[in-house]
């Protein structure tokens, strides 16, 4: 073999090794916390410098169900997420329509204003929200926690839906009007089906945000409205890493399901969206 092609080949394999070492490192970095939680939840007698536990079992799961009301907590999380979706859509969609479809003078300023709750750290206004909710008796109610969550989900709904509405083909809607459909029929049979991908993206987004929200729940929750993140925090605070791991394994299931839906339904970069236009 010619020495030049030989050295080129060597450089190429060297490059490949570096690339795959980087990818492997990244994969291990991301995956190791999950692997360790599963091992610690099912393992018994895992102390000191050992790679794996002495024996396996489901003791920590039994403990987890005895120590906390996991079924109720999961229900709370789902009810609050559903309420947040309804509130966010009811408030966000009309605003999004006004921004996407109507002539507005200071549109950019309006969008910047709407994004403010997302830009400013939640605690800044969460302290005030907690104070107000105490006087209105909204603390420790599902509605109260959902309203608090809506503060950060509505900006995303407005953002996603106004972009969706703006991209709608106005001629199709006009054609519907020419054929005799009134505004309600046009909305029901034309606008909603045509903007379904956007609505779905918004719903998934609101669900994930509400399901994972910690700060605002922390300021507005009570004994009857403990959500999954709050319960995880309380369990970690109790000091049993194994029990907390067992609860975490149960909590991982909905998160993985959500991940599956996201991969199928929406563009991943929309997840961190919001400041894209700035």
């Amino acid at each position, binding site marked *: 073999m010619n020495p030049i092609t030989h050295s080129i080949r060597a450089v190429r394999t060297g490059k490949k090794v570096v690339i795959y070492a980087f990818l492997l490192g990244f994969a291990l970095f991301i*995956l190791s916390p999950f692997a360790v939680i599963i091992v610690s939840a099912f393992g018994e007698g895992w102390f000191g410098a050992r*790679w794996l536990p002495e024996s396996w079992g489901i003791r920590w799961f039994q403990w987890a169900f005895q120590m906390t009301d996991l079924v109720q907590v999961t229900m709370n999380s789902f009810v609050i997420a559903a309420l947040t979706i309804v509130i966010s859509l009811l408030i966000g969609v009309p605003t999004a329509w006004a921004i996407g479809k109507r002539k507005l003078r200071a549109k950019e300023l309006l969008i910047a204003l709407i994004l403010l709750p997302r830009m*400013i750290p939640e605690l800044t206004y969460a302290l005030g929200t907690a104070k107000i909710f105490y006087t209105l008796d909204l603390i420790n109610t599902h509605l109260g926690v959902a309203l608090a969550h809506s503060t950060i989900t*509505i900006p995303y709904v407005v953002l996603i839906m106004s972009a969706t509405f703006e991209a709608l083909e106005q001629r199709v809607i006009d054609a519907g009007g020419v054929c005799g459909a009134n505004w309600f029929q046009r909305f029901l049979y034309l606008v909603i089906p045509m903007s379904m991908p956007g609505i779905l993206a918004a719903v998934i987004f609101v669900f994930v945000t509400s399901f994972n929200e910690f700060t605002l729940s*922390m300021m507005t929750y009570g004994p009857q409205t403990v959500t999954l993140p709050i319960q995880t*925090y309380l369990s970690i605070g109790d000091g049993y890493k194994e029990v907390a791991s067992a609860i975490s394994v149960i909590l991982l299931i909905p998160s993985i399901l959500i991940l599956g839906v996201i991969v199928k339904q929406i563009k*991943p970069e929309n997840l961190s969206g919001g400041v894209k236009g700035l």
Partner: protein
Amino acid sequence: MRNPSSGFLIFISMQFKKDNLLTLLLLFPGLVFFIGLFIYPLCITFTNSLTISNHTGYSLQNYIDLLSSAKYWNVIGITFVLAISTTILSVLIALPLALILRKRVKGHTFIRLLILLPLTVLALISALGLLIVWDKNGWVNLFLTQVLPFIDEPLKINYTLYGLILFYAWLYSPHTILMTLSSIEGIDRNVEQAATITGAKPFEVFRYITLPLSMSGIRSGSVMTFLLAFGAFNVPLIAGGNYRPLTVAIYTEAGVFNNWPKASALAIIMGILEIIFILIYFKLTKKRSAA
């Protein structure tokens, strides 16, 4: 006598007003939300910060107390160090990863899936897992001491500043990665090929073509990472140890010492600091992209 054209004009102007009214009506729920759930709580936090517990009347005493105490300057410093280091580290992870992934190497779909994991899983679970993995007896230290020949002592990572930055990067770098990836994959490859053909070296292509063209994605992604790292609350709460950023300090003030006015003052300071930082950041990056 009425001429028909003026009647038409009146009709148009009426139409216009009715249109405006409808727009306002559509904006109304959004407005109510914005004022009721954001502006009003913000004002309550602010007025609350001007009171002193067990006293009546308003004063700036809380702010004077906070800003004249070295303890709180330390807290502010730690918050900034954490947020900026996390942003830098996430860009350093995001750029090579995006450059590799756009070549669609084997297994790239799996890596893309992994990027989404930190976004969908509860941050507290991840923090718990990270604490166990990077523990003194955790897998990372086992690997370092047992597999690598030149390290004997386990490294102390948990509850240190470096460890916290690492955990933050695990949680918030996906935002930078996703935005960088989407802008790098949006670049027209012909432009880079044209540069290569006209004699640019690979590094020059990266420096003068790829990097400027993907700057908008890197910028918006890193802003998002910075904002999240600055306001991060749950991770430092359980993994921070002695390093308390602003959020934890606020929570301790309100929840543990039950001193809501002081907590509110600290929260207002945090909000103002973040807004100032964002404005500076946008000014800097705009200038650079214009040059």
